[in-house]
């Protein structure tokens, strides 16, 4: 994996052979080995039920691993109660104490640590200044908006300088605009304070925006851990390719393999050259994955120079402001998406594509990944 090439910072958290089952029949987390480096922003990304939240809860101490050990700064913490772990946590529904003011909420972790009054006051003030909410210190959580509440929750989780901050879908309850703004704020806090953040989300764009590394979970297994760009450009399997970003899938069979590339015969006829990423060998079935923005549409009859050229039928076009999507029928996939950049293909604006029109698509072999069959 790519991550292995980077000189690793010392691991702050190490999951070692972690398994977790709730009912004694199904493993929610299957054999998790994961290192989290000091100072990094790592996101656990996956669909619901993939085991990402369970992993976070085991780290926080609210769930006990069925097998394996978790080390925090080289100390085993499997049997350490949550309040001794020194891990700050931000919850999806903020979990601000409703009977305390904002100031009292932020002071809570300091007061349970018996920190003297003067220092508590100074640190609470600094924390509230950090989130630009000094003026609302005497309010109750119920009097704040969702975004403000989440900021307070953030301040509360950071004010006691924990070794590690966990965030469990913290922006899930906010609207899109606010969510994007908070993503930047959290990212900024991470960079200025140098904290280690473990972030759980099912929103892949959020993961791509914020993370240093992303661990993609599915079915209790980490599918891939990598930098966001590597994850997007070099997914190791079909699940990652489809979950992170948009992807068009074409089913086919591997005919020949030449070094890093292979020729794939499509199930619906025709063949393309693709990068051989995750295939069993010649004769094996495979799923091809092509990103919508790596495809060009050329009019019927026009010539092209690449090896990959497939006939397509326009189904529909969708206008999205900064770009447009063409929905095509390509080799049996009736939801084949092609992203049209405004200005990029003047002759092929979305408005010029008529439903039912026959066109061709081309893409480079290096943009077409041959992955495990779906």
């Amino acid at each position, binding site marked *: 994996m790519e991550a292995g090439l980077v000189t690793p910072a010392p691991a702050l958290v190490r999951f070692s052979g972690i398994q977790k089952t709730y009912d004694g029949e199904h493993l929610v987390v299957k054999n998790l080995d994961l290192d989290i480096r000091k100072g990094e922003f790592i996101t656990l990304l996956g669909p619901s039920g993939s085991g990402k939240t369970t992993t976070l809860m085991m780290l*926080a101490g609210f769930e006990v691993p069925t097998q394996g050990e978790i080390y925090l700064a080289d100390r085993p913490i499997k049997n350490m109660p949550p*309040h001794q772990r020194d891990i700050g946590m931000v919850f999806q529904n903020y*979990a601000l104490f409703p009977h305390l003011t904002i100031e009292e909420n932020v*002071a809570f972790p300091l007061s*349970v640590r018996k920190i003297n009054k003067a220092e508590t006051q100074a640190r609470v003030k600094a924390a509230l200044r950090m989130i630009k909410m000094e003026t609302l210190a005497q309010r109750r959580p119920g009097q704040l908006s969702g975004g403000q509440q989440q900021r307070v929750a953030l301040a509360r989780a950071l004010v006691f300088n924990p070794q590690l901050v966990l965030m469990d879908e913290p922006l899930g309850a906010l609207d899109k605009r606010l969510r994007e703004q908070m993503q930047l704020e959290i990212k900024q806090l991470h960079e200025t304070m140098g904290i280690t953040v473990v972030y759980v989300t099912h929103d892949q764009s959020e993961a791509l925006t914020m993370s240093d590394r992303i661990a993609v979970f599915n079915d209790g297994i980490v599918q891939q851990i990598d930098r966001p760009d590597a994850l997007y450009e070099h997914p190791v399997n079909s699940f990652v390719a489809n979950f992170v970003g948009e992807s068009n899938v074409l089913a086919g069979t591997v005919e020949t393999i030449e070094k890093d590339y292979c020729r794939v015969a499509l199930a619906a006829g025709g063949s393309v050259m693709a990068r051989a990423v995750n295939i069993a060998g010649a004769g094996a079935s495979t799923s091809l994955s092509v990103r919508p923005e790596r495809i060009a549409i050329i009019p019927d009859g026009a010539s092209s120079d690449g090896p990959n050229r497939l006939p397509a039928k326009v189904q529909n076009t969708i206008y999205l402001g900064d770009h447009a999507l063409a929905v095509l029928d390509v080799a049996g996939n009736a939801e084949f998406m092609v992203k049209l950049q405004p200005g990029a293909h003047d002759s092929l604006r979305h408005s010029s594509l008529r439903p039912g029109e026959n066109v061709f698509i081309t893409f480079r072999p290096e943009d077409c990944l041959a992955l495990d069959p779906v």
Partner: protein
Amino acid sequence: MTATSLTGANALTEVPLKRRLRRAERTRQVKALALVLPLLVFLLFTFAGPIAGMLWRAIDDREVRQALPQTVAALASWDGKDLPDEKAYAALASDILAARASGTIAIAAKRLNYALNGFRTILTSTARNLKAVPEPGTARETLGKINPAWRERTTWTTIKDAGGPVTGFYLLAALDLTRNVDGAIVAAPPDQAIYRDVFGRTFLISLGVTVLCLLLGFPVAYLLATLPPGRSNLLMIFVLLPFWTSLLVRTCAWIVLLQSKGVVNDSLHWLGIIDEPLRLIYNRFGVCVAMTHVLLPFMILPLYSSMKAISPAYMRAAASLGAPPLTAFLRIYLPQTLPGIGAGGLLVFILALGYYITPALVGGAADQMISYFIALYTTETANWGLASALGAVLLLATILLALVYGKLVQGQQVTGGMKN
């Protein structure tokens, strides 16, 4: 504001808008009123009416005025310093004769006897021995001869005090107070001064039962609020089970359990823990046990509803912020249950204040609560005035408590229940 700077034009359009809003709302309001009207009427007749009646009876005092109208009128101008004049004696003599004929003398005698022990004898003996209206000017002498009590100032002040039409006599009596011969408010004689004790006892038992209910109910409510739905529903049925049996049956069951040859004593004896049966019933212990059992659901349900609203995320958040379980409970969980504790406590306390059957059946003579005496005066001795006065004092105390509770809850919302 911009609205005011736009001069009168805006104000002109605003009034019709408000009126239109009112008109639009009116239908809705009428519908809402129609929905609550049956209950409102019902409550007026069964609740507000009787309470107003009771409060009125506590100060209503017209029995003597009706039986001895001339006397009461004659005494109206009397200063009470000396014996009244001949006119009053003559009026009394004529009143007594008239009342004897109409049969109202016994009612007046009963009322006067409340205020002065032995008055019944004075009045009835006078009525018996007074043959005819005395010659003018001899009334004082005649009555004094029949019963020397007519020469006492106390006898006359008693009649004047009972002349009505309203009196503070019953209310004072309910607080162990009385008026002396000079009209000053003084402590009642020791043999009549029992109600302060009874009120004290009533409040003490109610408070004890409330605390017991809280201690026993809190863990159960917590369990109910945190168990998975299936098991929580089962537990809830057990909590509500007592409501399905009559209060009388449950109280009698406690008698069976707790009496000296009862299940508890027999078991303890059989286990060799005791030699003599313990006295578990017809005392304060039995009253508290039985009342706690009956009132427990009223504590558990409000507690449960307040706990159900507390998200488990709060305790997790507290733990992740470094609070050990006990700290998290005391500083995060408990304060959020305070509304439930307050509501449950107030409910149980107020219900306990009015408890009658349970203490009457399982309590001893020294454990009878105020409602026992209210029932005694209404059903046995027909002293409606005193029964109503006791009820009025109890009602007043309860309202005061509810107001104090309201203030406390409100204050908590404004200033915050906890300080760091």
